[in-house]
């Protein structure tokens, strides 16, 4: 009945961690019965072993979701769907501390300065989409006396959702909220690196009153469970957040039954600072833009371009701020003063360090960081790292590092700054700092990016659409846009008098 283990957190508290696959509101063993371990990135110790879903388990979950859709969820009106989402938000707030603890332990996010805010945002996201649930409307289209046409904005049916490890709870909320509000049933696969918080949340989903089969949560790996979900003929839509390379694979797998695809992939977002910018504020926002969440943000503004006149002054302020507010506040996620935790895993840790070596070899100037902190040899810790004097062709100026490593360079003119900003294959986020309102809006319009922050960075909000252009993705999440991508329009034509 209940598959679980007791887990002790670094703050001394213990909690019951479910380990099964969550299907039809029950935790079950996987068919093969195999488990895999989730590692704590701050200590490199295993936390718990959870059941691993393979293809056959995905099949079971998809079947459960389809059954729930056909027999119950399809008939459940928007008012009721909204009520359930409101209830879930309430429960998440009630258990915020527990959720933040699990998230911090499994993902390395500092509990007090990072994880707790993710939980808050996730609850708000459920509540926000709960408010949309009874407001999914189509149009009636006037066509004269002989014809009446209207559109129904229908749910897809069964949606597959594959989420990453950098914001386990929040990424789930961004996906579940709109999908459920729009009337879909879901099979959600967590990242194999961070399966724990969503399994615990599954209890709240059941408590909130969602009928069995509406939300199914599987722990598993991309190459089998994820691939099966993306190609499954019983799944009507796949939503994926992760790397661009995997996103491309998902898009191809989805073509098997032409399922709808939305992708939130990688980025190498540019933050452009003009001479007239408030440099002190720019330094602070730039730090948020790359050093938050250990740099593991798809929209990280990981390239900073500073106009000639402000170059030295900005870098000086930026380095000082990063070292004071980030580098010196790095360590165990359960210490409330820490702002920077470990990177998520051994492979990520090695990848970031190798990019740091590449940066040095390419001739970029290392201004700060660049190595493992001396006092933190256990756990995947890397110091906040600043490179300066980059040139456009450097690998560290074009490739996504996904760690606390920023590449800074200079530019002369508006055109040059724009050219550098738009040079990569990506187009997710971007930021511009200037006090000149016309320049700001013009630049925003010229940037090739799904999001532009004017005088801030990574200042996202669930009311505002989020997503990328170019190789950064397809579709938008959050805001009303995030709701509509979980619906499809059916046009109904009523013949009112055309006789042949």
């Amino acid at each position, binding site marked *: 009945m209940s598959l679980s283990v007791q887990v002790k957190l670094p703050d001394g508290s213990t909690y019951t961690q479910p380990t099964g696959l969550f299907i039809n509101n029950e935790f079950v063993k996987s068919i093969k019965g195999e488990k895999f371990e989730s590692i704590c990135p701050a200590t490199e110790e295993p936390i718990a072993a959870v059941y691993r879903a393979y293809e056959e388990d995905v099949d079971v979950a998809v079947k459960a979701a389809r059954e729930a859709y056909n027999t119950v969820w399809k008939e459940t009106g928007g*008012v009721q769907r909204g009520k359930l989402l*409101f209830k879930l938000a309430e429960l998440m707030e009630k258990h915020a501390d527990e959720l933040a603890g699990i998230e911090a332990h499994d993902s390395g996010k500092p509990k007090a300065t990072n994880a707790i805010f993710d939980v808050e945002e996730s609850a708000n996201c459920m509540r926000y989409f709960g*408010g949309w649930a009874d407001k999914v*409307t189509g149009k009636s289209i006037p066509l004269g006396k002989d014809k009446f046409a209207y559109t129904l904005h229908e749910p897809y049916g069964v949606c597959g959702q594959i989420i990453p490890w950098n914001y386990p709870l929040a990424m789930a909320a961004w996906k579940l909220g709109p999908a459920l509000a729009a009337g879909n049933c879901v099979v959600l696969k967590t990242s194999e690196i961070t399966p724990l918080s969503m399994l615990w949340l599954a209890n709240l989903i059941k408590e909130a009153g969602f009928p069995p089969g509406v939300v199914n949560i599987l722990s598993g790996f991309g190459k089998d469970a994820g691939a099966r979900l993306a190609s499954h003929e019983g799944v009507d839509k796949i939503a994926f957040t992760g790397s661009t390379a995997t996103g491309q694979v998902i898009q191809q797998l989805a073509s098997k039954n032409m399922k709808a695809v939305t992708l939130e992939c990688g980025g190498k977002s540019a933050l452009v600072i003009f001479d007239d910018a408030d440099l002190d504020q720019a330094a602070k926002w730039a730090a948020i833009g790359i050093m938050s969440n250990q740099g593991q943000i798809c929209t990280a503004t990981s390239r900073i371009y500073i106009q000639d006149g402000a170059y030295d002054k900005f870098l000086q302020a930026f380095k000082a701020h990063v070292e004071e507010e980030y580098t010196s506040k790095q360590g165990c996620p359960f210490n409330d003063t820490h702002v920077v935790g470990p990177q998520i895993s051994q492979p990520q840790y090695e990848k970031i360090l190798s990019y740091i070596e590449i940066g040095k070899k390419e001739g970029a100037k290392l201004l700060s960081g660049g190595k493992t902190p001396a006092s933190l040899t256990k756990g995947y810790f890397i110091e906040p790292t600043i490179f300066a004097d980059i040139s456009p062709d450097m690998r560290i100026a074009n490739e996504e590092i996904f760690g606390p490593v920023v590449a800074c360079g200079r530019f002369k*003119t*508006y055109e040059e700054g724009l050219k550098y900003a738009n040079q990569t294959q990506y187009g997710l986020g971007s930021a511009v700092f200037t006090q000149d309102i016309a320049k700001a*809006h*013009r630049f925003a*319009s010229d940037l090739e990016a799904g999001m532009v922050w004017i005088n801030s960075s990574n200042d996202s909000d669930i009311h505002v659409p989020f997503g990328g252009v170019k190789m950064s993705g397809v579709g938008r999440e959050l805001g009303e846009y995030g709701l509509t991508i979980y619906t499809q329009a059916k046009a109904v034509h009523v013949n009112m008098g055309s006789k042949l």
Partner: protein
Amino acid sequence: MVTDEYPLTVHIKLPNGVEYDQPTGLFINGEFTKSKQGKTFEVVSPSTEEIVCSVYEALEEDVNAAVDAAENAFKNTEWATQDPSVRGRCLLKLADLVEQHAEVLAGIESLDNGKSLFCSRGDVALCSAYFRSCAGYADKVDGRIIDTGSNHLSYTRREPIGVCGQIIPWNFPLLMASWKLGPCLATGNVTVLKTAESTPLSALYLCNLLNEAGFPPGVVNIISGFGKTTGDVIALHPKVRKLAFTGSTATGRHIMKRAAESNLKKVTLELGGKSPNIIFNDADIAKAAQNMIIGIFYNSGEVCCAGSRIYCQSGIYDELLVEFKKAIANLKVGDPFDETTFQGSQTSQLQLDRILNYIDVGKKEGAQLITGGERIGGKGYFIKPTIFGNVHEEMRIVKEEIFGPVVTITKFETVDEVIELANNSEYGLAAGLHTEDINKAIDVSNRLKAGTVWVNTYNDFHSSVPFGGYAQSGIGREMGIEAFDNYTQVKAVRIKIDKKKA
């Protein structure tokens, strides 16, 4: 009655045993206060004619205090400018609280208005559902970005209007309060709401829930009073920028004049109706009869969109009338607190007299009294469900709104004929039509001049669906996404953008 001795809270025991504390003051700036002159008026229970309690009456100086409190909340606090999801959360909490206090609220409503518990419970459920629906919209009042070329950034904002005056009627006291408060508060406005003098109690009870839900002081102010004194002051007030009124067409016309005379405050009106309920030959007769019952006898017929003119196609006329009379015979009219009662009392002596007078008029005009037509008993304002037949279109009982359990029934032959009959009215609030033929349903719906057309149902509301009148039945729509347009004004912003080189 002039006294400043009257307590601000009175303990009341409802006929079904539920006990509660009834606030009696004016709710201004988050607190209950006595009126400045200490004036009060009596509240009567229409099903027993007994005095329930008194409440304080707002006169001009009290209205001014309420408006000042509202203006202060709008201008000097962050109510209108903060993250709008905070407003949404207050409304969500309010919805939950209404649900928690459902039995008390339903009891107050039945005591004060005389409607059956069956009706008042329905009202309370619709009320909390509506608050919840508005809550979800608070942080979604988006404008548009409009592409006019790269030399400009052009966009619209939808901003709150400011201090709203809201005047509600006595037929659905709590529900009408929710229809007014919901969209007003979701969009960041503040309000002074006046209840009807015959039914002030449930809204005053709601005030405690408003505080508990976290609405800051001054955002909602609720005052009891009379139209000529209290209501008129609100309608003329220079600081009130928007007025929403539900009530009779005559008063609505007056309100609109006052708005124009004063400061051209924006006006939305939900007024009277004389809605046609049309039954075609191919309708399901049993279901049609049930919908006719709901259409005219629900809420004792005190419904603005009541289906008070029935048009029945000749092919089924006799059969339908038999079915209708049978259904009426099964209706329980009586004590609102009896769980089996469908129809309670009328709301006041005034209403009782008005309806009985119309019944008299009908008889004098030569209409045939098919059933009912008289008061029930001597205590409590109860009237028998009443049908008049053999009417013609010029009769007063066919043209004028009676606002009670009195319906006329007319035979018709063709679709064109009934559409003309149905549309022959100064009103245009609602209409019902019953048929199994989808083409007829859509075609007739298209041609009826009414703000709501019900097909094979009646008085069938949903918070997501807009409601309001054509012609002299009103201006603007309540509920649905349309309601929020009443409480926002569009600001267009055009920013000139010059091309920069550096």
